[in-house]
């Protein structure tokens, strides 16, 4: 169960890593999530999710030299593994099936 299941926050983090490419590290993910979900996300929560996802084999990480904006400190950069990519596809497929099954009214177009 644990290996397959993705919590909502884990899903967000996984998607963020996917979208960020080379910028996928702790603060980068936190920044994106704070902006997109419009809620306050603690750094510890981001690390926890990243570590869990790595533990599940959906992500892998490597140490990369730091930029001057972070005082030259190294950063841990995350990438999707093949199972990670598959997990995203699976989640999306599940969601799409569920949306199709549900009698949802079409969302109003925003102007």
């Amino acid at each position, binding site marked *: 169960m644990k290996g397959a299941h993705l919590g909502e926050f884990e899903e967000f983090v996984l998607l963020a890593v996917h979208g960020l490419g080379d910028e996928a590290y702790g603060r980068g993910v936190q920044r994106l999530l704070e902006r997109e979900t419009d809620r306050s996300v603690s750094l510890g929560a981001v690390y926890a999710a990243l570590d869990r996802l790595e533990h599940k084999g959906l992500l892998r990480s490597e140490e990369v030299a730091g930029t001057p904006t*972070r005082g030259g400190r190294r950063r841990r950069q995350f990438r999707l593994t093949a199972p990670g990519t598959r997990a995203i596809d699976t989640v999306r497929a599940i969601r799409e099936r569920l949306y199709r099954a549900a009698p949802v009214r079409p969302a109003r177009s925003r102007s």
Partner: protein
Amino acid sequence: VNTAPRRPPASWLALVRALLPAARRDEVEGDLIEGWRDRTDRAYWRRAWAFWRDAGSVVARRNRQGADSAERRRPFGALVAAIAHDVRTSGRMLRRRPFFALLVVTVLAAGMGASTAAFAIADRVLFRALPFHEPNQIVALSNVNGSEVLGGRLERYAAIREVSALGAYYTGGMNAATASYVGRVRIAAVSPGFFEVFGVHPLWGRAFSNSDDPEGLTAVVSFAVWQRHFAGSPALAGQTIRLNSRTYAVVGVMPHRFQFPDATEIWIPGLADAQASGTSRILPSPAVVARLAPGVSPLRAAAAFTRADEGRYTRPSEPATATPLQDQLTIYSRSPVVMMTAFVILLLAATSASAASLLLFRLRERERELVVRSALGAGRWRLTGQLIIECVMLTGAAGIIGLLLARTALGVLAATIAQIPGVPMVDADLGHMDLRVALLGAGICALTGLFFAVGPGLAASRANATRVLRSGRGSSAGLGILARGLVVVQMAVALVLLTVASTALATVVRLARVDLGFSNPRAVVFDLTLPEDRYRTRSAALAFLERFTAEMHSMPGVHNVGATNVGPIWQGTPVVAIRLREEYSAGDDAPASAITQLFATPGYFRAMGIEVVAGRAFSAEDGQPGAGPTVIVSETVARSLDERVAAVVGRRVRLGGGRGETAEVIGVARDVRLWRVGVLRHGQLYEPLTERRGWFDGRLSIAIDGANGSEAAVDAARVVLGRIDPDLTLYNVVTVRDLRARYLPTERLTLAVTSVFSTVALVLSAVGLYGILGQVVASRTREVGIRVALGADIVRVRRSVFAAGLRLAVAGIGIGGAGTFLAFKVAAAVLPRQDPPSPATFAVNALVLLTVALVAAWAPARRAAAVDPVNALRAE
């Protein structure tokens, strides 16, 4: 320009690093730095909050996991993890009971705020060394009279071995004028040794020296004056300031910490201006200070002074004594401050007691939880630690709020004190919180937290699983006695403080009703000094007054203008003791009385609203050449001449001894309380100001009755002064309405301080009682349940809880009564003018306390009555 630092403080980063495993330090630190940079557009506290939220979340998570073997090896890892866990648990617990948390924090914050403020004042008055070089060697000399200064006594003292420097000074005010400023400044006229005594050197330029011409017009200015009026440049050459219309060369600037005595703005040498100290005819006694040689005690110095005086022709009547300057300066404030500090220590104890009793109450509710946790294997220290952390969190929050409260309170207090003349040794920057006060607050906070955590902590550590689970009763009964005792004490403290506060209130109210003798609420009074240099002759002063009065009358809205030499309240009043005799009385054996001898212009009585009860006020003819001398006396003076006041009008009196000329009494005016509202010091005798009569040293107190408000009247006066003599400046402006308030400085201060403290104490005792009774009710739930199940009367259950509360309150009132008696015994020794509390005041306060106690007991009593027997017994 955004000047926000681009990185979080290094100390914060270091702290976070220390709490992290080495492998993750760089990564986390980098992310935190980036986060800080991303938020540079936000307020500092928001950035700090985000930083600590992130850092905390990372550290907490690291230690929670604890699975990583590398992390296991970290020293204190387990402890940090446990603490982090406890912090989270405590946070949850407190969030679940917001009312409880709020109550505890409020209680602690109020107590800590009040005591930090009080201790800050005590520190300032009692402990802080004066800001001078080796302040313990500076002493103040007493029993040195003005005439002896001329007799060479000071030179004699300065020469002895035990004294390394000696200086004398007079204080006063002068009219000051520079290119950009005309106003009044506080001055000190000092002898050459003065600065040497304090070991202070000018920041720029030089101090006075013996080679200065004693009449030389040189001045040393304070740093503040230098910055304000001389643009603060170190170039001194050619800088001048006009003081009392004479030009002084500015020779030095003092460093900004040096303002002795009494926030002095300008120092002038010796007797350069006799008018400065307010008395040009009589040489007043200077204040004398000395720096003792190293290792010389004040007693040894005094003995040396006496030896120096021995065998001299002009031997002083009394030996000079030396007192440490600090003691001398705080002589009036010391005892009240000590008393206040004692009160505050009691208050702090009461605060801790309240908070502890609340926490104990809360512990009752959580006893089962603690016991279950202990049964499941939680160690005793773990449980105690959890409670202590809860206390620390509450105390920390309260400490921050308390410190802010103290800061506000000190600011308000400093502002209040600044308006009260004659409250010594509390300087204006009392309102600034410095590190010392902040540390003091933190210390108080830590002590309180410790005190208040120990009881509940012990109670928790002694929680006995078997007993509690079996009977549903805890084992903290023993601590209940301690807590109860503290509640009694805090009730007593509240009662003492309430009585002191209401007595102060009664005094203020009583004195506020006293007839001051002048009653025109529209009038505004201000002072004016005519410098002797420009108004050398009496006729020049008279001409000025005449022109000023005439021009003021032509200003719109000005009804009456009057002048005298001494207006209400201002100190330095030259009270002249004179013998007033009727023309044909027996001679010098007639009763002599001290009378304040004033002059008054014709408009003065009407401008101030001083009623003339018999006869008439002065007219323009009085005092003119050719008219006979006339005087107006106040009622007290009139009564000393005749029982029927009106009968005095028309009689002739002789002033002073000998065969001096006589004057006709043309009117009797109301007594004016010139000095203090509580006591009528002397009666008054008014004369018209003429070439030959009237005591005049250049100082005028002018009263204006204006229809358009006091500001318009003062503005009008400024315009008129500008036309007559632009160098003149009016000062000490006060409306008659405000004068009344200024008559009661000490009383109002006592009232302000005690009412704040007593309110805090009252609230604390109510909360403490609530906590204790809640505890009582909680511990008796089972008993009450059984009694109710057996058919006990609900009303009686409720009554028994009330009775428990009442017992505590009555005990508190008893002890408080004794405490009040003692406090006023002490107070009577310290402040002789303090009214003792009336039995009625005491009774009313006891009643107030009782009412508060009943209100505090109400909620627990209701809860007891609402016990559902089924639930109470099922809970077993």
